[in-house]
C-alpha cells in the first residue's frame, strides 16, 4: 500500500503495468506536441508577443508621449487628446494612476508600432472587447507591432491592481475603416 514500505526494497526494478506505459507515452507525446506548437505558432501564427523592449526613464517617456500627442492631435475628448498617427508609424501610449493617455485613432488593417510604458506603478493593458492583455511596467518601454482587424470603438481597462482608483482607469482606441485600396491587401499579408 501507499502507506507502507514497497514490497520490494529495490522498487525501480518492478515491472511497469502496460496501461501505465501506454498512458506515459501518450502524455509524453502530447506534451511534446504542445511544446512544439508554441514554437510553430511563431512561424504560422500572427499573434506572438514582441520581445522588443527598452529601459526608459519614466519622465523621459512622458516627454516622448506628450511630444507625440502634440504633433498628431486631431481633436480632444473631455480634456484628453485624440491622436491619429500616420499609418505604420510609432504610436505612444502611457499608463499612469489612473489613466491611459492619450486616446488613439488607428486605421483598420494597418500595422503600428505601439509603445507601452508606465509612469508609476505596474498596470495591465487590457483591450476590450477584443481581449488582448499585456503587462505594463514602469522603466520598460515595450514595442508591439499591432494591426487592428476590426473597426469601431475599443476600451482599454487596467487589469493589474494599481491602488484605490484601479477600477476607474480606462482608455480608448478608435479604429476607422481604411481609406486606401492597398490596405486590404496589407491585412491579407498580415502586416
Amino acid at each position, binding site marked *: *500500500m*501507499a*502507506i507502507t*514500505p*514497497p514490497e520490494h*526494497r529495490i*522498487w*525501480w526494478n*518492478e515491472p*511497469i*503495468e502496460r*496501461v*501505465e506505459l501506454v*498512458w*506515459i507515452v501518450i*502524455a509524453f507525446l502530447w*506534451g*511534446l506536441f*504542445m*511544446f512544439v506548437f*508554441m514554437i510553430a*505558432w511563431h512561424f504560422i*501564427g500572427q*499573434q*506572438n*508577443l*514582441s*520581445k522588443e523592449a527598452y529601459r526608459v526613464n519614466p519622465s523621459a517617456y512622458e516627454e516622448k508621449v506628450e511630444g507625440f500627442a502634440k504633433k498628431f492631435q486631431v481633436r480632444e475628448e473631455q480634456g484628453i487628446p485624440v491622436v491619429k498617427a500616420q499609418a505604420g508609424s510609432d504610436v505612444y501610449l502611457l499608463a499612469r494612476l489612473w489613466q491611459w493617455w492619450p486616446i488613439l485613432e488607428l486605421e483598420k488593417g494597418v*500595422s503600428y508600432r505601439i509603445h*507601452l510604458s508606465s509612469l*508609476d506603478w*505596474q498596470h*495591465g493593458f*487590457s*483591450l*476590450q*472587447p*477584443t*481581449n*488582448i*492583455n*499585456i*503587462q*505594463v*511596467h*514602469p522603466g520598460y518601454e515595450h514595442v*508591439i507591432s*499591432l494591426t*487592428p*482587424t*476590426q473597426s469601431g470603438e475599443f476600451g482599454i*481597462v487596467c*487589469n493589474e*491592481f*494599481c*491602488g*484605490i482608483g*484601479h*477600477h*476607474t482607469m480606462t482608455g480608448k482606441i478608435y479604429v476607422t475603416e481604411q481609406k486606401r485600396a492597398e490596405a486590404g491587401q496589407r491585412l491579407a499579408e498580415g502586416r
Partner: protein
Amino acid sequence: MTAETVVGAVPAKAEFRTCQYTGLKVDVAAQALIKANAVAAVVFLLIGGLMGLLVALTRWPAVHLLPAEWFYLVLTGHGANVLLFWIIFFEIAVLYFASAVLLNSRLAAPKFAWLGFILMVVGALATNVAVLQGDSSVMFTSYPPMQAKPHFYLGLILFAVGALIGCMIFFATLVVAREERTYEGSIPLVTFGAVTAAIIAVFTIASGAIILIPTWLWSLGFISYIDPLMYKVVWWAMGHSSQQINVSAHVSIWYLIAALLVGAKPLSEKVSRTAFLMYILFLQLASAHHLLAEPGLDASWKIVNTSYMMYLAVMGSMVHGLTVPGAIEAAQRRNGYNRGMFEWLRKAPWGHPAFSGMFLSLIFFGFIGGISGVVLGTEQLNVLMHNTIYVPGHFHGTVVAGTTLAFMAATYIVLPLIFQREIVWPKLARIQPYLFGIGAAGISLFMMGAGTLGVARRHWDITFSDANGGHKLTFPLFSSGGAVASHYGSERAPKLPGTIILVAIFFVCFVLYYFINWKYLSELWLFQ
C-alpha cells in the same frame, strides 16, 4: 543543540500510543504538533474563507457589498490567508504525519518544531494586522513599486522561517526513523510524495527569502529601488512553487486516502515515484507562467520554462491522474466489485467524506485546474487571459477544488486517527465534500468563462457576476468515523477498463479545449 544531540539523545523521552484503527505507533509529541498545525490551518481557512465570501459578495453586482477600499483590503487578506497560511500550516501537519506517524517513528526535536509553529503564527498574525490596518492593500503579489508597510513583508518572512524549520524537522525525522530502524526497506509512497513536497518547499522558501528580504529593506528605506520585472521573476519562484508544494502534498493525500479506505496499492511504485520526481525536477520552472505578458523576455526562455521543460511535470500529473483511480479500481476489483466497467466506482465508499472529497478533488483538479493551467501557461494563449478573472478561475480549480478539498478529505481521516474524536454531525459531514467541491468547481468555471470574455481580476467595479460564494459557508469541519479497511490483495496485471475510459475522456477534453483556445487566439488583432 547540534543536530547530533537532537538525533541521538532523546529516544527514551518519546512517548507513544498505538492507534486503534491502523495499529500505527503514534508519537505523542508529533500528535500534539499535528493537531496544533491543523487547527491553526483551519483557523486561517476560516478567516481567509470569510474574506473570500466578502470578495464574492462585492463582485456580485446585485449585492456589491463593500466599498472599493475595503474590497482591495479584504482581497489582499484573502490571498495571504488561504494561499499561504491555511495551506502551509496544513502541509506542515501532513509532513509530520507522513514522517513520524507513517514511519512509526518519534518526531525529531519537537521543541524546535514548536518554535517553528510559533514563528509561523506570529508571522501570519503580523501580516494580517498589516493588512487590516489598511495601508498594505497591495494584493497577495505585492508588486513593486507599490509598497506595503514593513510588517506586511516581515510577517511573511517570519512565517517562511517557521515553515522552513518545519521542513527541517521533517527531514530530521526521516533520518531518525532510518537510524532507529522503525521501518523496513524503502519509505512508503505517501512519505516519498511528502519528501518531494518538502524539497519543493525549501526551494520555495529560499526564493521567498531572496525577494522578500530586500523588499522588506526597501519598505524600511534601506534600499532605494526594486526592479519590478526582476521582482516578478523571483517572487513567482516563491508564489508559484508554493502552489507546487500543494500539488505534491495533495497527490500524496490522494494515495493516502485511497490506501486507507479501499486498500489501494500503487500499480507500480516505480511509475508513481518517478512521477513525483518529475515535480522536483521541473515544477520550479513555473515562475515563467506569470511573465508571459511582460516586456523584454525572449520567446525561447518563455517556452522552455512555461512548459516545465516540454511538459514533463504535466506528464507527472497526468500519470498520477491514471495511477490513483487505477489503484482504486484494482483494489475495488480485488474487493469483489468486478462487474462491468464501473461497478468498482459505483460501489466505492461515496458516503465517506474522505473518499468523496478525495475523488472529487482528483476530478476537479485534473479537468478544471489542470487543463486550464496548461492553456493559461501556453506562451501565446496567455495573452487572451493574462490578469483576467480566468486566472483566479484556474487557481480556484487547483487550490480550492483540488488542494483544499483534498486537505478537507484528509481531515476526515486525521480526526479519528490523531484527534481521536468521533463525528459530530455525520450526515452533514457526508454531504460537505459535495457541497464544497461542486461550489468550488462552479465558481472556477464561472470565473474562467468571464475571463475568456475579458473580465479583469482584482477589480471592484464590474458588471459581471462571478459570485457563487454560498459554498464557503458550508465548510466547518466535522469528523467522521474512521472506517479503515485495508487489504493487501493479490498481484499481477489488473484489468482497468473503467480507469482507461476516465483518462480517455480527460484526454479528449484536454485536446479539444486546447485547440478551442488557439482558435480564439487566431481571431485576435494581429501583433508581433
